[in-house]
């Protein structure tokens, strides 16, 4: 569109529509590399998965896909295992997202106020866990949580206590929250920090002249001014948590009882496909989860449309 406008302004002798269409043709060529990759690796697999989710093939009736319409979806949304997994990730969202956001926000506000070398080092240190691949991070925490190899027993022993078993079914929830928080806080902190740096310092001066204290500046001025970044990271955290997979899947190798193969909806879909060879039902689970993630994100963005500037 902008191409045809500029052509008109340039005022060449040729009829504008012809040039415009030729230039648009080239536009398609530019988009093509992306479009091809997008189609081959995203649209086609999604379409195939959708097709699979509408068909069924039991183990005992191997080899034949039968069209079953929405049957698989009815089964998924009445499947106690799937619903239990969903409820579990919703609980993770309710705990993990606020914890991560609060820690990241506090760290960013502190680092924004300090301008010493210490703050630069701290910024890096908080960010480093994000640079560690999620699988490695989870493996590492698996060792730290280990009753035999982990440091917990030594630490608790110093004050004469027995360390809790971090991998028991009662504690695994908190252990996982800890891993994810450790991994992602740095990333969110950097986003918030960058947003804070882009605020014009003269606003703070004005606030100080009006008699605002440091805490008031932080809570009444800084936080409202970065609300669109906050909305963005909450959406990231929300989507990531609903799709929770890597950390529990890795930790499962050392806590199979506490983390069953259907712990989260994504893990359930993975096990259903690759361990139990039910690719059709697994596609249904994946689509159902995708739909719920979409709805969840949409609702959140709708509710926060004022803060995010979408309105």
């Amino acid at each position: 569109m902008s191409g045809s406008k500029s052509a008109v302004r340039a005022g060449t002798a040729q009829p504008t529509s012809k040039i415009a269409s030729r230039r648009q043709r080239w536009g398609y060529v530019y988009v093509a590399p992306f479009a091809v990759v997008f189609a081959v690796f995203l649209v086609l697999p999604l379409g195939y998965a959708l097709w699979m989710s509408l068909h069924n093939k039991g183990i005992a009736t191997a080899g034949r896909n039968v069209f079953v319409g929405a049957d698989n979806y009815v089964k998924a949304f009445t499947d106690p295992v799937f619903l239990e997994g969903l409820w579990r990730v919703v609980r993770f969202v309710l705990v993990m997202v606020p914890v991560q956001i609060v820690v990241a926000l506090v760290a960013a506000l502190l680092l924004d106020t300090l301008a010493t070398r210490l703050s630069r080092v701290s910024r890096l240190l908080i960010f480093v866990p994000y640079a560690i691949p999620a699988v490695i991070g989870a493996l590492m925490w698996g060792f730290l949580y280990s009753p035999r190899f982990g440091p917990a027993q030594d630490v608790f022993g110093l004050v004469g206590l027995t360390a809790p078993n971090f991998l028991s079914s009662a504690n695994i929830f908190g252990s996982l929250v800890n891993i994810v928080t450790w991994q992602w806080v740095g990333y969110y902190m950097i986003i918030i920090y960058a947003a804070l740096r882009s605020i014009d310092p003269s606003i703070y001066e004005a606030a100080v002249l009006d008699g605002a204290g440091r805490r008031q500046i932080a809570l009444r001025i800084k936080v409202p001014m970065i609300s669109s970044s906050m909305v963005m990271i909450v959406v990231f955290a929300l989507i990531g948590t609903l799709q929770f997979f890597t950390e529990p899947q890795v930790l499962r190798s050392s806590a199979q009882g506490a983390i069953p193969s259907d712990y989260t909806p994504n893990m359930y879909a993975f096990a259903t496909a690759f361990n139990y060879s039910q690719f059709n039902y697994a596609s249904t689970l994946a689509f159902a989860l995708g739909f719920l993630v979409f709805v969840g994100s949409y609702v959140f963005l709708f509710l926060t449309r004022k803060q995010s500037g979408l309105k």
Partner: protein
Amino acid sequence: MRTSARRRGVAAAAAMAVSAVGLAACSGGSGGAAEATCTNEIKQPDATQVTVWAWYPSFETVVDHFNETHTDLQVCWTNAGQGADEYNKFQTAIEAGTGAPDVIMLEAEVLPTFTILESLVDLSEYGAAELEDDYTAGSWSDVSNGDAVYAIPVDGGPMGMLYRADIFEEYDVEVPTTWDEFAKAAQDLRDAGFEGHITDFPTNGAAFNYALFAQNGWEPFQYDAEQPTEVGINVDSPEAEEVLSYWKGLIDDDLVATEDAFTTDYNAALVDGTYAVYLAAAWGPGYLQGLSEADADAEWRAAPLPQWDPENPVQVNWGGSTFAVTTQSEQPEAAATVAKELFNTDEAWKLGVEEAALWPQWKPMLESDWFTGLEAPFFGGQKINEEVFLDAANGYEGFSFSPFQVYAYDQQTQALFDMVENDTDAGTALSTVQDGLVRYATEQGFTVTE
């Protein structure tokens, strides 16, 4: 303007070409079996190549031996992961209809899982049935179904009891030969001041727990590949309940640990003196020797698995693998030859025994003087094959697994964990598994008999 548009066009075309190359590179990996890259070196480039997936330790020496002794056939070997990792890839290849190797290493327990997907070739067409007498009766029963033979047995896991002679001696406790004596020994060790546990009962033991139940006559599944849509499920039988109640009693008295198997913690506990006994398969000694942080004073010895009824001893098996030919293979005859001949010489088996600590199901090796007479330095020179595991191997009569074994194991792990964690009884745990499996099998289109 024209020039610049054209130049940009060239740039765009170049970008497209680059991405097209990228795509082509991506799709290159999914070519036919013949184009696969091998981990090993091919000795006869002109010979027919057969692709093999396997995860045996030091398997390359066996592959090299095969390739050096065959001029018309060459093995192209890939390690596609151990156990579940390999099965995941195979499941995906089956669903995709392409990508499976010619020959695949499968544990005997998952054979029905794959025969029902019609992904394994009946090797009786390629002369496998004549090999029956070369293999132990139990292992042959695990790979065959009537006249059909779905795999060639390789190694097995006849079970025995590995114990710390030094611990039993220190606390002056008799080495048990029956499960009653075993429970008493557990209590005696505790009373004498032993701080560890006599052994571990892992709730994620899967095939290990199956073997313990099977020793008491448990037959959870009736499945016949001839009638692939019918399955009998009888998990919550009195035999299993008796065994599980026995272990639950020991757990309740804190005489037996309940650590998950095959974790780093469990590995350390096996060798650092936390457990006095390791109930093990014949591959267990090799596993133990590979673990670090071992107790330097440990004196390991092997004894037969304790029995429920010493008058009628029952031998059981834990693990063991086979070679099967996939239906995706375009050269099933060559593949069948490879499956049959990879492990059918003394030389190959010596490599398997010495390098990989495998337990042969191939009788010429199993019954050879060399193998029976092997002295195990780790066991103070004890002839553990002859004294313990040979009887176990010969006494094993086979076991019928379900066509959804991975699911069955996952259900059992969950139920046993809940039993320990929430202190419910053995009967509840078993009936939970039973109900879950019946529901699952019905959903999958099976006719279920209980």
